[in-house]
């Protein structure tokens, strides 16, 4: 596979930032109650990550290493402010739904993690691809969780009715729990289990191996 394509596709499953490293779950799960909010936040995060990686990589030789964190945070926060202002100008209702979570992209560990680990040491094109790839891997997780929650919580996907509700003469009784916080944690936990079963290399080593169970005692 082409190396550029590889930088984009690897973070989707094999090196997914969410399931392999515990990067960037901060705050983002809060927007997974519906697909449209999750999609908006995913696009914003992917663009911010890609552009930030590009800019930081361009000036990487001029950043003194003692103040590199503060430089990176300033660049990222400025981009996030731009994204927030654009949302407020062109999609005001959506920005009201997302409330503080657009601003919190700035403190999302995934952005700082990728710029710190990759963009500081690599040329701009590779860094941008890496940023976009990681953003896409992250968006994938977010969208899967959001689709499950919206479909079972409200019977809709992106606002269109998929499962007819009992209240409107259909057969589906929506699970209200899906729209509350606990379900997001549990769905993500199960998702990580699934990915790690498919890709055993991502598993964490057990700290204590269980002792082989003793033979059942004969009465």
């Amino acid at each position: 596979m082409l190396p550029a394509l590889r930088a984009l596709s690897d973070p989707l499953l094999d090196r997914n930032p969410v399931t392999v490293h515990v990067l960037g779950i901060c705050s983002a799960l809060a927007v997974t109650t519906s697909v449209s909010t999750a999609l908006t936040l995913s696009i914003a995060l992917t663009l911010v990550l890609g552009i930030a990686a590009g800019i930081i990589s361009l000036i990487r030789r001029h950043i003194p290493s003692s103040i590199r964190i503060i430089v990176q945070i300033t660049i990222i926060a400025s981009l996030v402010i731009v994204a927030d202002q654009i949302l407020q100008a062109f999609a005001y209702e959506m920005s009201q739904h997302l409330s503080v979570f657009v601003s919190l992209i700035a403190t999302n560990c995934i952005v700082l993690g990728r710029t710190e680990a990759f963009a500081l040491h690599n040329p701009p094109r590779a860094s941008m691809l890496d940023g976009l790839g990681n953003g896409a891997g992250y968006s994938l997780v977010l969208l899967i969780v959001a689709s499950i929650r919206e479909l079972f919580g409200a019977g809709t996907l992106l606002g269109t009715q998929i499962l007819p509700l009992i209240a409107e003469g259909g057969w589906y009784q929506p699970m209200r729990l899906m729209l509350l916080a606990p379900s997001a944690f549990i769905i993500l936990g199960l998702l990580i289990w699934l990915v790690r079963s498919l890709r055993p290399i991502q598993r964490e080593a057990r700290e204590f191996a269980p002792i082989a169970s003793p033979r059942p005692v004969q009465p």
Partner: protein
Amino acid sequence: MIDLFTRSIFEDNLALTFFLGMCTYLAVSKRIETALGVGIALIFVQTLSVPLNHLLHAHLLSPGALAAIGLPDTDLGFMRLLTFIGVVAGLVQVLEMVLDRFLPALHGALGIYLPLLAINCAIIGGSLFMAERQYDLAESAVFGLGTGIGWALAIVTLAAIRERLRYANVPSGLEGLGLAFIVTGLMSMAFSAFAGIRLP
């Protein structure tokens, strides 16, 4: 005030309801001692940073705040995020120096956790919520203390559960991160049971 305090601990718990500070929450919840250290450091920083950010937000950034120096129409609201991040990062740095100078024992215990909190989303998120919900100074102090305690409570509880889970025989692939998420989900359900409680 008491109502706001209990609500910010349980119902508006930053970790379990708003998913804030999740990275730190999952990364340092393997041992109770470290979890306690981070928790106390976060209460400290949160209690100081929310009121401080409130002062800056009310007297410098909100629309019309600069009327005294002849700029009645200026609205610096868009600078909110950058200001909060700067304040928190600076506060953590200053706090570290002050602790090192005057309370070396406490610095020894919390020192390594303070820098971790400089870009923790729970702290920035707390300040952003304060600005969005337009709390006054006293309310934001109570909100900061309450959310700090709530977050610390959540991480210490998770650490305690995870210390026991290390000996459990869980399905392969689920150990570590996957199980931590499911446990957090169950804890979040338990915390949401406090949601309807209203104190006078």
